[in-house]
């Protein structure tokens, strides 16, 4: 055996792993990308063009709106929570408890979360009934919980902990010496934040917000469990394209919609990677 071939031999050990991923990750992605440009088995731009119709841009726009709003809300409140944690003692119970709980709640999604909010603010939810009987307030109304506003509230529940997890390391990277040096050179608290604190934290903050955006945009299960009527957001619209009898034969539309999702998420993650690269050098 030639020495070149012998050197490549150990690489064979990776075949099972690479093969597995090829079948269950790479092929599905290729199916989506290729299928978006096909219709009934033949190359076509029908489905790509269908993305521009009102029926398709509506859900996309709602998804973008939902993701953006929950990203911003999650970023602001999560940022405040992270700041409250980091200003405490580094080994204290508070930090460890909040970090562990955030780890749990950030994964808390889907069906379970939907039912948590149904149990709280649904028609016969605990808070709904309490407000109804004690104050005569009807918080349920016409069921806003099961539409876009409800999704905003529910998504915030996992966006805030995710922000804490992602942003806390950046806050921890803000060295106390910078604060003290700035004070020593004459800076007030406001001046410190304006000239040192915020410039250093802004890229990390924006990057984390983008991560939250991608996270909300890709979420499916929570909405699937909460929303029973209509397809207000992109993931639900994809489900309809896949399963609805009315849209029989529109399998490829689902591919086009999924491709659209890949593009949005890829762009957002690219922005995240660029922002994080700058700060990792400063806040090591």
């Amino acid at each position, binding site marked *: 055996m030639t020495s070149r071939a012998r050197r490549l031999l150990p690489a064979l050990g990776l075949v099972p792993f690479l093969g597995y991923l090829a079948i269950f990750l790479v092929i599905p992605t290729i199916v989506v990308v290729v299928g978006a440009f096909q219709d009934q088995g033949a190359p076509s731009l029908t489905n790509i063009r269908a993305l521009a119709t009102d029926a398709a841009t509506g859900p996309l726009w709602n998804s973008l709106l939902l993701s953006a709003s929950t990203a911003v809300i999650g970023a602001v409140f999560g940022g405040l929570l992270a700041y409250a944690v980091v200003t405490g003692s580094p080994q204290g119970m508070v930090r460890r408890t909040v970090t562990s709980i955030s780890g749990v709640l950030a994964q808390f999604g889907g069906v379970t979360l939907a039912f948590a909010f149904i149990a709280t603010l649904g028609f016969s939810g605990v808070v709904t009934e309490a407000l109804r009987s004690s104050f005569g307030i009807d918080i349920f109304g016409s069921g806003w919980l099961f539409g876009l506003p409800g999704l905003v509230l529910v998504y915030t529940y996992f966006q805030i902990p995710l922000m804490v997890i992602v942003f806390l390391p950046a806050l921890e990277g803000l*060295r106390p*010496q*910078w604060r*003290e*040096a*700035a*004070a*020593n*050179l*004459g*800076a*007030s608290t406001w*001046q410190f934040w304006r*000239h*040192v604190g915020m*410039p*250093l934290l802004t890229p990390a903050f924006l990057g984390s917000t983008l991560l939250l955006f991608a996270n909300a945009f890709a979420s499916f299960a929570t909405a699937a469990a909460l929303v029973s009527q209509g397809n207000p957001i992109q993931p639900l619209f994809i489900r309809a394209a896949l399963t609805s009898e009315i849209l029989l034969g529109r399998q490829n539309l689902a591919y086009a919609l999924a491709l659209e999702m890949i593009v949005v998420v890829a762009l957002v993650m690219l922005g995240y990677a660029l922002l994080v690269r700058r700060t990792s*050098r*400063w*806040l090591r």
Partner: protein
Amino acid sequence: MTHVATRDAETRLGVELRLEDLRRSYGDLYALDGLSLTLAPGELVALLGPSGCGKTTALRIVAGLDEADSGRVVVDGRDISAVPANKRDMGMVFQAYSLFPHMTTQQNVEFGLKLRGDDRGKRAARAKEMLELVGLSQYAGRYAHQLSGGQQQRVALARALAIEPAVLLLDEPLSALDAKVRAQLRDEIRRVQLEVGTTTLFVTHDQEEALAIADRVGVMSHGRLEQVAAPSELYARPVSRTVAEFVGLMNRLPARVVDGRAVVLGASLGLLEGSISSGEGTALVRPESVEVHAAERGDARVVTVSFLGPITRLRLATSRGDELVAQLASAAAAGLEPGSAVEVGVAETPVLVIDAG
């Protein structure tokens, strides 16, 4: 102590800094137990001591980053104890990591001036002046991560001095650097300080540093000042065991005090203040005060020989079982090897005799 021959005491600028009876405790722990110290205008005083002795706490209280439980800090006659840290007109150099990473060297140095409201031209001129002073003019556009540790500290020094502070505070500025850089940089710091003439408080745990550059050194232990004196005084006439053992190497030899004199290794020596007045004790003797001659019938043996360039250190053992270290010019130690028989004596210098045990 290094001198710059061009200036004398009268032409120094700077103001007086007084620490009056500072006390600080954390629960049961006394970080500072009544520290009082006065720095003359333009003086560089080093606070020296092991970690936990309170020196950094004292510095931070002067800077306003920490609050004393009681006591005052007085600058140029004004009590500034209640003044917040950002209004104290002091420059501080931290141990490490204090440069703002998102600003260039020049922007870092200009930062204090910017906060003061100086216009761009004035700031740039002053920054240029400061960077020239520390020898880093061509690094004005670099960022902190592009500079070595020593260069970062020089920038930190330039930044602290740019605002023309009344007092300069240095918190172990050399501890995070490696040995060679440390020696070079401490001379740099002293040179700059003498040129600018600012009253300076320098905290360190490295006695060589303190002795090398300070006008006076204050040795601290357990929140208190044991002795404040010029380096040579501290070295030759320590007033307590802590000071004697912390500064330089010390031999501990059995001694007997009789009639105001100490008898050590057969020699009769004068007593330093603070010694016991009579009876058996332990004399603290410097290695360079130990006299060694090769002698066939000598009552001591050489155990190890350490050649250190200009000087040689010998570890000796006497027939009575005492162990001591002697330091000689290398020429004088020629011919001595492990196992050589020698005679040991003590030079005629006063010694500190403390309680045995």
